[in-house]
């Protein structure tokens, strides 16, 4: 009789404990659902495909733009030979184009490559390198670079670098890692600035902590492509 009562008592405690335990486990499992089961995952593939399609369209549009620019240049050049004033304007146009980054340039320079190091947690989400890239570009100009490109995107007066999540966008175009900054110009002067401990402090610290790979090298022949984006001048008027 005593044994039955003791059993009933323990059952009174055990049953709520079991229910509570089951409840806790269910809640825990709900919280611990892997990201892959999140309802939003179903949208990632179609959204990613749309981004890829838009990027492809952008490449096509840039090709078309380059073609029209080149046809307009040919026409200008041909008709520029007709009169003195046309020749003079054409020479100014050519000079400004080179100075604005609308022509390809070749020569010696420095290449800087940045990438997340494997095992540094970047597999979850790649780090945002945009501020690092602006630091490198700033240092390159400071060192006397005459032309700079980030992973093939020429850096001009309208250029910007930004991150959307871990994706880097330069001149409106998505660039993927490893990121390479090509700086055309005097290699010794550019390297001196890049090696200066006051420059690229964050990048060098992360390189020393082995979370990123940072490679800086002198290159005897760099090819910096022409800017291929839109030249938007709507609000500003020259005086």
């Amino acid at each position, binding site marked *: 009789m005593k044994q039955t009562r003791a059993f009933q008592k323990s059952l009174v405690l055990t049953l709520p404990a079991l229910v509570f335990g089951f409840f806790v486990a269910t809640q825990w499992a709900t919280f611990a659902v892997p990201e892959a089961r999140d309802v939003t995952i179903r949208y990632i593939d179609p959204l990613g495909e749309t981004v890829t399609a838009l990027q492809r369209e952008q490449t096509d549009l840039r090709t078309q733009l380059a073609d029209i620019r080149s046809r307009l240049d040919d026409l200008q050049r041909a008709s520029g030979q007709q009169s003195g004033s046309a020749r003079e304007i*054409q020479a100014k146009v050519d000079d400004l184009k080179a100075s604005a980054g609308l022509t390809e340039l070749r020569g010696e320079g420095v290449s800087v490559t940045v990438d997340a190091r494997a095992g540094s947690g970047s597999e979850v989400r790649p780090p945002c390198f945009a501020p690092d890239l602006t630091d490198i570009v700033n240092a390159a100009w400071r060192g006397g670079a005459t032309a700079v490109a980030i992973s093939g995107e020429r850096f001009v007066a309208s250029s910007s670098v930004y991150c959307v999540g871990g994706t880097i966008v330069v001149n409106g175009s998505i660039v993927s890692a490893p990121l390479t900054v090509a700086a055309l110009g005097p290699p010794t002067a550019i390297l001196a600035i890049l090696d200066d401990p006051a420059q690229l402090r964050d990048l060098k610290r992360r390189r020393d902590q082995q979370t990123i790979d940072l490679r800086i090298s002198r290159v005897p022949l760099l090819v910096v492509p022409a800017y291929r984006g839109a030249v938007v001048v709507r609000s500003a008027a020259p005086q």
Partner: protein
Amino acid sequence: MRSRGGALAVAVVALFLGVLVVSQFRSREAYSRALQQETPESLTRLIADQSDRNRELRAEIFDLQLRLDRAQAAVAGGRGSLEEAQRQLAQLQVFSARSRVTGPGIAVRIDGPFDERALADLVNELRNAGAEAIAVNDARVGPRTWFGAGASGSLVVDGREVRGAWTVGAIGAPDVLYVAMTRTGGIVGQFELIYQRTRIQVTRETALDLPPVTSP
């Protein structure tokens, strides 16, 4: 002898093509993998940004095609293409920052401690919002402009010392620039948290007058 040389050439070309294919594949793979890691919110923003950029490119293609047609007609009619050359010159004078420019935009006044990295970030943000011409006080920001730290809290723009308070003038669509700077979580909000002793004021301007770059 000739066949050995031919085989070697084929082998070199095949090797080169192989490397090219693999590097293209790896680059595409890295690109797709990077997008797979993004959230739907990030991907939606990328879609919006890319759509804007493509619209801009289409508008420029349309505009250039019209200009090309007009110039071709002018040349065919014996009038030459001087008008088109002058138009191109005016556009490039602005884009290369080599001429004084006027236009509407915004002014960002920064009064208090500030540094060169923050200034570079502000210029980057203004460019991203569509600024067509930018100057820090009387120093125009050109395609090759760099920023540095000067003596006693001043800043350096292309080697020239620029003392605070600083006014960063940006020509472009005033409303677009203003919203891009002052939106919640935007760059000005971030500066206000980081530089708590610095007063940052953004105003819409109907007419800004910015000088040309002084460095090449």
